[in-house]
């Protein structure tokens, strides 16, 4: 019996009530889903369970015994294993040191044997059917998906009784998700209790036995997954029904005018030259396994990666050597990592939004406050950014609202080529819907839109056309009625698919 029962848990950060009486009960042997929009309090709950923060009120019980961990170690000792949303790997430590931190083999007089450590790390990776590789590499050198996998393995190595996965799949690819699901199912089957958090409702449906829905810091419903169809989940989460998540695809984009064209454009050696025409009104998605040249494609277009070939935007041929040059040429990018590459979290909403357009709202280097106010007010209004005062630091907003701030900064430049790199990762359904709508609006207004997504379902449902990349080469171009399976098959399969009806 490893039942986890939380009742009436409260937590405030200063004036923000992150949890206002949240309850949840998960039984041993089950995978329990936890869903809710951005800022609903899911991660806060996770942090309380894992000892990273302490609750203001309410109770948590594991196996009927009260659980009040005062530190991450205490939580770990009590049997709680957490895969943190923001990951807990130390960039400068090696894969092995991260994997086995605190459970190193052979520690004598405080000294860790590196040989034994590396051997144990390779062993551990092998046990999870992963290629060991060079375990002395610092984690800094790994990509997000690799780190995510490492974080999962690290957590399981502590042999927890309760396994918490906070958006552990957001960076994973279908096959990695399958690998994780198998692990979680095995864990539950062995009597463990798993808490699974994800914004991909399809994952919740396929993995979880029961589910709890959070809204605004409290539980608002839940039950066996079979009794909760997706539409009902969404309604519980958002407090309103959503007609349709994805906007309708563009009709007959085929013969529309070309707004942007890539000719033999690439970033050798990781991205081979490719040709691509983006048409008026069209949303073009890029998919494939992680790290197949998608980042290089977007980076090369935006001037952060050395590029070869040419880009035609309107009538002009471009070659951008820096993001500033790209922006000036009408190319804008929503980067993948909001916190690291997107926003200045300690600065205000206003400063973040106007940062991209300073040239346009200033005269002789002096910011025109009136024009700035109009710009910011317009953005906040149009994207319905929830913020009390536009001078409040962006870091204090919920993830979804942060994403909207980033989008509004990018859109304020009125780009002619809009690049979105996994812009909906970790974003809740409500906000996603709004982002999709915006993308459509932009395309309809004549902006060339190219987006990458790690979520095959999103690609299938949103894009008019999907390029699947593999090893730097376009493996398939899909259009019309695209199915998720087609994308996955093209991404992993050896077959070469050509434009499909």
């Amino acid at each position, binding site marked *: 019996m490893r039942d986890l029962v939380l009742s009436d848990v409260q937590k405030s950060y*200063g004036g923000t009530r992150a949890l206002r009486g949240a309850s949840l009960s998960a039984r041993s042997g089950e995978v329990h889903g936890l869903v809710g929009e951005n800022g609903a309090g899911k991660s806060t709950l996770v942090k309380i369970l894992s000892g990273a923060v302490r609750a203001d009120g309410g109770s948590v019980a594991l196996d009927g015994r009260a659980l009040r961990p005062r530190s991450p170690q205490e939580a770990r000792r009590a049997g709680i294993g957490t895969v943190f949303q923001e990951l807990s790997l130390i960039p400068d430590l090696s894969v092995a040191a991260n994997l086995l931190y605190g459970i190193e083999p052979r520690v004598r007089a405080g000294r860790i044997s590196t040989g034994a450590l590396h051997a144990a790390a390779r062993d551990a990776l092998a046990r999870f059917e992963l290629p060991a590789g060079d375990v002395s590499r610092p984690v800094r050198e790994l990509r997000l998906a690799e780190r995510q996998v490492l974080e999962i393995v690290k957590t399981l190595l502590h042999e927890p009784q309760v396994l918490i996965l906070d958006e552990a799949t957001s960076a994973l690819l279908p096959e990695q998700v399958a690998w994780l699901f198998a692990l979680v199912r095995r864990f539950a089957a062995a009597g463990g209790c798993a808490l699974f958090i994800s914004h991909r409702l399809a994952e919740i449906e396929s993995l979880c036995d029961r589910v709890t829905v959070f809204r605004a810091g409290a539980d608002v419903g839940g039950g066996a997954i079979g009794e909760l169809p997706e539409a009902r989940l969404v309604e519980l989460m958002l407090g309103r029904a959503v007609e349709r998540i994805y906007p309708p695809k563009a009709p007959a984009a085929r013969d529309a005018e070309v707004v942007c064209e890539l000719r033999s454009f690439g970033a050798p050696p990781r991205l081979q030259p490719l040709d691509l025409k983006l048409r008026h009104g069209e949303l073009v998605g890029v998919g494939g396994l992680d790290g197949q040249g998608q980042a290089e494609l977007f980076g090369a277009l935006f001037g952060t990666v050395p590029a070869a070939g040419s880009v035609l935007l309107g009538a002009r041929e471009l070659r951008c050597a820096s993001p500033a040059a790209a922006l000036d040429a009408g190319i804008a990018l929503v980067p993948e990592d909001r916190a*690291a590459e997107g*926003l200045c979290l300690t600065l205000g909403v206003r400063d973040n939004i*106007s*940062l991209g357009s300073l040239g346009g709202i200033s005269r002789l*280097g002096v910011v025109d406050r009136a024009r700035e106010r109009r710009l910011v007010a317009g953005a906040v209004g149009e994207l319905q950014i929830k913020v009390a005062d536009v001078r409040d630091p962006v870091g204090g907003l919920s993830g979804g609202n942060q994403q909207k701030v980033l989008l509004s900064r990018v859109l304020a430049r009125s780009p002619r080529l809009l690049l979105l790199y996994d812009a909906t990762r970790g974003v809740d359904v409500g906000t996603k819907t709004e982002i999709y709508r915006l993308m459509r609006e932009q395309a309809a207004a004549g902006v060339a839109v190219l987006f990458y997504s790690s979520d095959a379902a999103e690609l299938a449902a949103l894009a008019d056309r999907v390029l699947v990349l593999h090893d730097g080469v376009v493996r398939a171009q899909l259009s019309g009625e695209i199915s998720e399976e087609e994308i996955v098959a093209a991404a992993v399969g050896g077959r070469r698919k050509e434009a499909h009806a």
Partner: protein
Amino acid sequence: MSLARHRTVLTAYAIALLLFAVGTLHSLDFAAPSQLKTMLVYASFIGIIGLGQTLCILTGGIDLSVPWTLTGAAVLTSVMTAEGRPLGVAIALVLALALVVGLLNGIGVAYAGVPPIIMTLGMNGALQGLLLVYTDGGISANPPQGLTDFVLGDTLGLPTQLWIWAAVIALGCALLSLTTFGRRLYAIGANRRAAELAGVRARRVLVAPYVISALGAAVTGLLVMGFTGQAFLTMGDPYLFSSAVAVAVGGASILGGSGHYAGTVAGALVLTLVASLLPLFSLGTAWLQIAYGLILLAAVYAAGLNVTRKKRGSPDA
């Protein structure tokens, strides 16, 4: 409006006021106009250097090459005028040299990627070496009289020097609050990568703080020389850390991204007040140093209180 938003800066002024009150209670002379003037003049040395230092620290950097840039400016001016060059020409040349020093620092930091503390520390040593070689370890030139007259001369009831500081304050506050340059500095300090992806040409922007700092140091060197009527090789020593400390007392984060020159001005006042206040209590040098350290800790703690609190509770904890 919201005073809370400017709490760090206001705290620094509150500390300055408190120190002033303590001094006045101890001796009414403390508030005598001539005394105030003198104190302001001393504050202005740190204050003028403090503008460049504030800009550097806002971007997450620091300028430790101030001492020998300052000394170099004074010494070279004194030597050149002694050789018969007109004062104006000497000053122009010296400012041009300071510009080069600032450019080198800035380019090292922005383009070569050298950490600012190392770049400027190395530059300070290099300048010291060059200047010592040049002067053979000593200077015995008459200081230019015109400079002294100008610096100490009275303009509308105040020493010209204070008007210069007033202009620097106006310029510094405007730069940070009103211009795109200021916005870009904050953005780079808060998250350089994000700023670059938002279209800020970070490398180019990053050079400017070091140039401004070097020019500020050079101007201060000239002012100190005018004020004491002499150039001497240890004249930069007190300014190695004091301007950075003034910035910190003014509530800026040494990590960059937050702070304002308005705070640094208060920080310069606080440092000067402490230095003027402590001798009133006839402490020995040893106790003076101890008291200085304790007051510094207390002031930075008070001014930085809400900053550090916020840092601790940042949402991606």
